[in-house]
């Protein structure tokens, strides 16, 4: 088991049930993935609650961190979707915090990274695109379909162009989720592989131990890079969410 762990960089992504629950033939077990989702939400909520509890006019360190997060997401949303977009602030902020905290928690050794599973990221992306579609049709009715009709396209090309635009629109949640999941998965596999080199090399006596310094340095550097990626992917996810919401607000741009 321990030996298998070292050579198998995929092992860390395995889902295993903690509390098995089976209802009506469905496996609804409480898994390690679910556990870390709960942990993510608990950490994010606790951090925001405690850091804003004092509500001082001149923010302390923690309070200014959460104020920065608020301003960051608020400006992002206002830039991309205008003032009307601010009605979606709770959604975008929750998504941003969830993805960010999940990515950061995943960086701890032995912790599970929930965003490295495409079903989780796809669910988040489907939530976004579902919001866009529902809100778009509710607000503009059939006018929302103007999104798929670019201006200045000759009539005989219209069916082709509209078909491509529709596919392009449907592919957005897919690419949104694939990007987040692929970044996290690839990063964690790379980290695991380089750490595995350290263990394997150090088994070859003194020369091996001397040589294992190189992959160790690489692993340290990669950890820093992963920290950047964790922030960046949460940011990208939130920015793209804002841009898609902008389409729902202003379809005939």
């Amino acid at each position: 088991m321990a030996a298998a762990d070292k050579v198998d960089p995929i092992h860390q992504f395995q889902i295993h049930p903690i509390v098995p629950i089976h209802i009506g033939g469905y496996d609804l077990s409480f898994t390690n993935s679910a556990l870390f989702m709960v942990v993510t939400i608990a950490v994010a909520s606790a951090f925001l609650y405690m850091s804003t509890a004092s509500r001082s006019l001149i923010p302390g360190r923690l309070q200014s961190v959460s104020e920065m997060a608020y301003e960051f997401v608020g400006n992002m949303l206002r830039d991309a979707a205008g003032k009307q977009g601010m009605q979606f602030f709770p959604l975008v902020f929750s998504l941003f915090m969830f993805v960010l905290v999940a990515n950061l928690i995943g960086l701890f050794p032995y912790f599970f990274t929930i965003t490295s599973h495409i079903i989780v990221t796809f669910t988040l992306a489907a939530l976004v695109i579902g919001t866009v579609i529902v809100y778009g049709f509710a607000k503009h009715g059939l006018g929302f379909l103007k999104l798929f009709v670019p201006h200045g396209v000759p009539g005989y090309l219209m069916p082709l162009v509209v078909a491509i635009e529709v596919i392009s629109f449907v592919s957005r949640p897919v690419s949104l989720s694939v990007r987040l999941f692929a970044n996290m998965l690839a990063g964690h596999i790379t980290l695991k592989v380089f750490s595995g080199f350290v263990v394997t090399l150090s088994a070859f006596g003194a020369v091996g131990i001397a040589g294992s310094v190189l992959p160790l340095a690489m692993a340290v550097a990669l950890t820093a890079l992963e920290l950047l990626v964790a922030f960046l992917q949460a940011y990208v996810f939130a920015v793209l969410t804002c841009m898609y919401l902008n389409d729902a607000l202003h379809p005939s741009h």
Partner: protein
Amino acid sequence: MADKNRPDGTGETGRGRQPEATIRDDELERRRRELEASLASRRTDRLEGKDDAKAATGYGQALKLSSEFIAGVVVGVGLGWIIDRLAGTAPFGLIVGLLLGFGAGVLNVLRSSGQVAQFGQGGKPRDPKE
């Protein structure tokens, strides 16, 4: 035009540039729209640019563009396959879906690299200039 809904520095810049009172209202309006259109295109540039600057590694760029392309093809094939299943048009839905998905993938890549206007904006920036 949805640009009216964007509260930002546009109004200020526009007013600052035109101190003469002799300019007619529609002229002002035209100029304001022109400025907003160019600002809007620049703003998306900046958004994408920020993204690029932070993901300065070619690796991030590669993941981004390939995910866009793959998503287009996958969704095209998926939709074609579903149409096949529902309508019983055995291989043709898949074939047409694959080709359209390929087109959509290329469109996605061009859009995310800023070569083509964003969704629903096609040709619009050209309008106010005439």
